[in-house]
C-alpha cells in the first residue's frame, strides 16, 4: 500500500518534470514580438516554410510587447532554453553576443547557396557584427518616418508633407492640425504623436549636426549637451512644452499617441515600419508616410531586427534552414508584402512586394530614400540600460518638468557609469 503511494508520487513528480520539456522532436521553435497583425505576418512566413520543408515543423512563440519579449528572451537564454530562432533588435543583442550566447551566423551565410552578404544593405548588416563577426541576419532596414493622416490634412486644407520639408514646415503643419474641435478648452486633435525617448530624439540631434555618443565604435559617454544637440532637444521638447502640438502628460496617459493616431485624432505619428500591418488593418482613414523633416542636414535612424540563433539551440542546422529561408528572396517577399518590413535584401526592397503603390503606405520609397542618410545607434553591452535611463530624463524635459539643458545633462551624467562598466 505504502510503496504504491510512493510510486504514484514519484510518477506524478516525474511527469511534471517531463511536461516542462519542449515537445517538438524534429522541428524548431521561433520566437517573435508584435501586435496581432504582425503575428499574422510571421504565421504566413512559417506556413510557407513548412510547405517547402514538410519535415521541419515550426512552433511559433509570440510575445506581444517588445519589452516583455526582451525580458522573456533574457530569461530563456539564462535558463539555457531559448527558442531555436529569435528576433533581436540591433540595440539589444550586444549583451548576448558578449556572453557568447549567440551562434555567429557569418560562417553559415558564407556557405549558403541561397543568400550572400552582398545581397543585403550594408547599413543593416554592419550593426550586427560583433568583433568583426556577423552574429545575426537582419530581416529589415527600417527607419523612423512620419505617418500622417491624409484626411486630417485635407480637412485642414494643408498640402501633404513634401520630401524636403523642414522642421519649420513640420511645426507649422502640426500647429494647424492641433485643434479643439468641440471648443471645450481641451485639445481633441493633436498635430504630433512622438515618444519622449532617446531613440526618437537621436535623429533630430544628427539633423542638427550633433552626435549622440562620442565614438560610435567604442562610446564612453552620451554627447547630447553640445550646442547642436541642445538646439535639437529644444525643438523636440518644444513640441509639447511650448507649442502643445503633442499631447501633454495627462492626455498621453489617458490614451497613448499611437492609439490616438489609429483613432484618427493625431495627425502625424512617428514610428518605424513596424506599424504598417496594424495601421493597414485598423486605421479607418487614408494615410501615408513622409520622411523625417530635415534640420540643418538630413538624417534618419536605423531600426533593424535580425534572425539570431542561440548557441543553446539543439537544432542549429534546422534553425539555419529556417533563417536562410526567411531571408531568401521568397521569405523576405512574403514578409515585405504584409507591410511589416523594409526588406534588408536590396532586390526585394526594390521590388513591387515592398513598393506596390496600391498597398498603403503608397510612398514606401521614403524608407529607401532615407538609407543614404541613415545613422545607427551604437552597439553596446549596456545599451538597454543607457537608453532607458536617458529616456527617463528626456521624458522630464519633454513634459516640461525640467529645462532642456538639465534633462540632457542628467541623461549624460546618469548613464556615464554604464559605458565603462563590465569592460
Amino acid at each position: 500500500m505504502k510503496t504504491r503511494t510512493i510510486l504514484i508520487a514519484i510518477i506524478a513528480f516525474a511527469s511534471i518534470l517531463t511536461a516542462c520539456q519542449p515537445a517538438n522532436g524534429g522541428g524548431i521553435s521561433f520566437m517573435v514580438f508584435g501586435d496581432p497583425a504582425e503575428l499574422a505576418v510571421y504565421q504566413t512566413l512559417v506556413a510557407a516554410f513548412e510547405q517547402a520543408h514538410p519535415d521541419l515543423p515550426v512552433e511559433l512563440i509570440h510575445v506581444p510587447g517588445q519589452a516583455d519579449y526582451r525580458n522573456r528572451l533574457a530569461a530563456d537564454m539564462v535558463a539555457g532554453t531559448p527558442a531555436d530562432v529569435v528576433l533581436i533588435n540591433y540595440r539589444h543583442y550586444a549583451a548576448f553576443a558578449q556572453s557568447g550566447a549567440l551562434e555567429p551566423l557569418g560562417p553559415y551565410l558564407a556557405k549558403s547557396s541561397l543568400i550572400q552578404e552582398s545581397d543585403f544593405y550594408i547599413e543593416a548588416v554592419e550593426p550586427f557584427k560583433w568583433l568583426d563577426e556577423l552574429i545575426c541576419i537582419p530581416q529589415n532596414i527600417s527607419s523612423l518616418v512620419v505617418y500622417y493622416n491624409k484626411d486630417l490634412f485635407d480637412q485642414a486644407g494643408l498640402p501633404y508633407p513634401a520630401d524636403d520639408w523642414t522642421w519649420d514646415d513640420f511645426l507649422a503643419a502640426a500647429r494647424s492640425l492641433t485643434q479643439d474641435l468641440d471648443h471645450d478648452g481641451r485639445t481633441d486633435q493633436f498635430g504630433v504623436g512622438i515618444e519622449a525617448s532617446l531613440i526618437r530624439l537621436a535623429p533630430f540631434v544628427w539633423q542638427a549636426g550633433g552626435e549622440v555618443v562620442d565614438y560610435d565604435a567604442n562610446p564612453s559617454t552620451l554627447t547630447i549637451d553640445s550646442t547642436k544637440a541642445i538646439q535639437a532637444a529644444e525643438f523636440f521638447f518644444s513640441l509639447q512644452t511650448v507649442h502643445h502640438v503633442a499631447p501633454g502628460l495627462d492626455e498621453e496617459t489617458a490614451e497613448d499617441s499611437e492609439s490616438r493616431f489609429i483613432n484618427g485624432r493625431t495627425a502625424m505619428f512617428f514610428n518605424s515600419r513596424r506599424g504598417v500591418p496594424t495601421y493597414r488593418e485598423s486605421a479607418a482613414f487614408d494615410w501615408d508616410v513622409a520622411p523625417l523633416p530635415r534640420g540643418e542636414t538630413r538624417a534618419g535612424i536605423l531600426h533593424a531586427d535580425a534572425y539570431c540563433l542561440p548557441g543553446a539551440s539543439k537544432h542549429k542546422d534546422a534553425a539555419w534552414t529556417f533563417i536562410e529561408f526567411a531571408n531568401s528572396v521568397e521569405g523576405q517577399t512574403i514578409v515585405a508584402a504584409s507591410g511589416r518590413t523594409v526588406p534588408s535584401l536590396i532586390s526585394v526592397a526594390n521590388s513591387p512586394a515592398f513598393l506596390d503603390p496600391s498597398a498603403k503606405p503608397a510612398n514606401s520609397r521614403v524608407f529607401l530614400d532615407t538609407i543614404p542618410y541613415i545613422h545607427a545607434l551604437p552597439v553596446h553591452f549596456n545599451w538597454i540600460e543607457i537608453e532607458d535611463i536617458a529616456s527617463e530624463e528626456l521624458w522630464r524635459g519633454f513634459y516640461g518638468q525640467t529645462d532642456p539643458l538639465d534633462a540632457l545633462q542628467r541623461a549624460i551624467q546618469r548613464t556615464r557609469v554604464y559605458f565603462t562598466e563590465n569592460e
Partner: protein
Amino acid sequence: MNSLARSRRLQPYLFLTPYLLGALLLVALPAGVSFLIAFTRYSGMGRPVFVGWQNFQWVKTDLLFWVALINSLLYILMAVPLRLLGALGLALLYSRPTRATGLYRAAVYLPTVIPDTAYALVWTWILNPFYGPLNPALRTLGLPAPSWLAESAWALPAIVLASLFQIGEGFVVLLAGLRHIPRETYDAARVDGANRWQTFTAITLPLLSPWLILLSVRDVVLSFQSTFTPAYIMTRGGPYYATYFTPLHIYETALDGMHFGEAAAVMLLVFIVTILLVVLLYNLAEGWGFDED
C-alpha cells in the same frame, strides 16, 4: 516499538514530504544560490566570477536602488495599516450573520480572487484621468480629481488605493478571529454596563490582537513583493520612478541589464530589510501587551 506504531509516527512526515521537497527544490535551494550570486559578477550566461562585496558597493551608490527602496517602504507604510483597518472594519461590519451577510462577504472577497494582471488593467481604466469612472465620481462629490498615474505625487497613492480592495484574506482571517472570541465575554461586559466603544477597545481589540499582528507581518512581507504586477502593468515604474519598487528594480537589473549579481545583491538587501521590519513589528507588538498565548 512495533512496526505499526513506527509507521504511524512516520506518517505525518511522509505526507509532508512532497511539500518539503517542493519548498527545498523551489524555494530554499534557489534562494541559497541567489545569495551566492550576490557576491559574483554574472550575466546569466557563462560563469559567475566572485567579486566579494563589489555588488553591494555598486548598489550603495545606485540612485535607483534607493528610489525603489524608499518607494517600497512608503507603499508599505501606507498600504499595510489601511488594508488592515479595511479588513477589520469590514469583518466587524459583517461578523453577525443576517440575511444578506453571505452576499456581502462574497463581495468583499471577490476582488481578491481576480488575477493580479486583470486587476491591474481594470484599475488602469478606473484611474484613467479622462475616460475612467473615478474622476467624474470625485468631481460630482466636489472632491479634487488628480491625474493619478500621470502625476508623480499621486501615482503611488493610486496603487495603494487599488490594493485596498484586495483584502479578502485578511477579512476572512479576522472573521474567524472574531468568532474565536467567546460570547460570554461580551455578555459579561454588557451586564457591567460597557458601551459599544468600551467593548471594542477592552475586549474585541485585545483578543483580536494576535490575529492583527499575524496579518500585519504577513502584509508587510507580501507588500514588498506584491507591487510588481501593478507597477509593471499600470505604470512601468513611472512617472519618473514614482512607482519604481524593489521587485521591478530587481527584475529590470537582471533581465534588462543582465546584471544578475547586482540584482541578487538587491534581493539580499530587501530580504534583510524585510526581516528587520518584521522584528520591529514584533517588538512593537510586545509593547502593546501582545502575548504569544
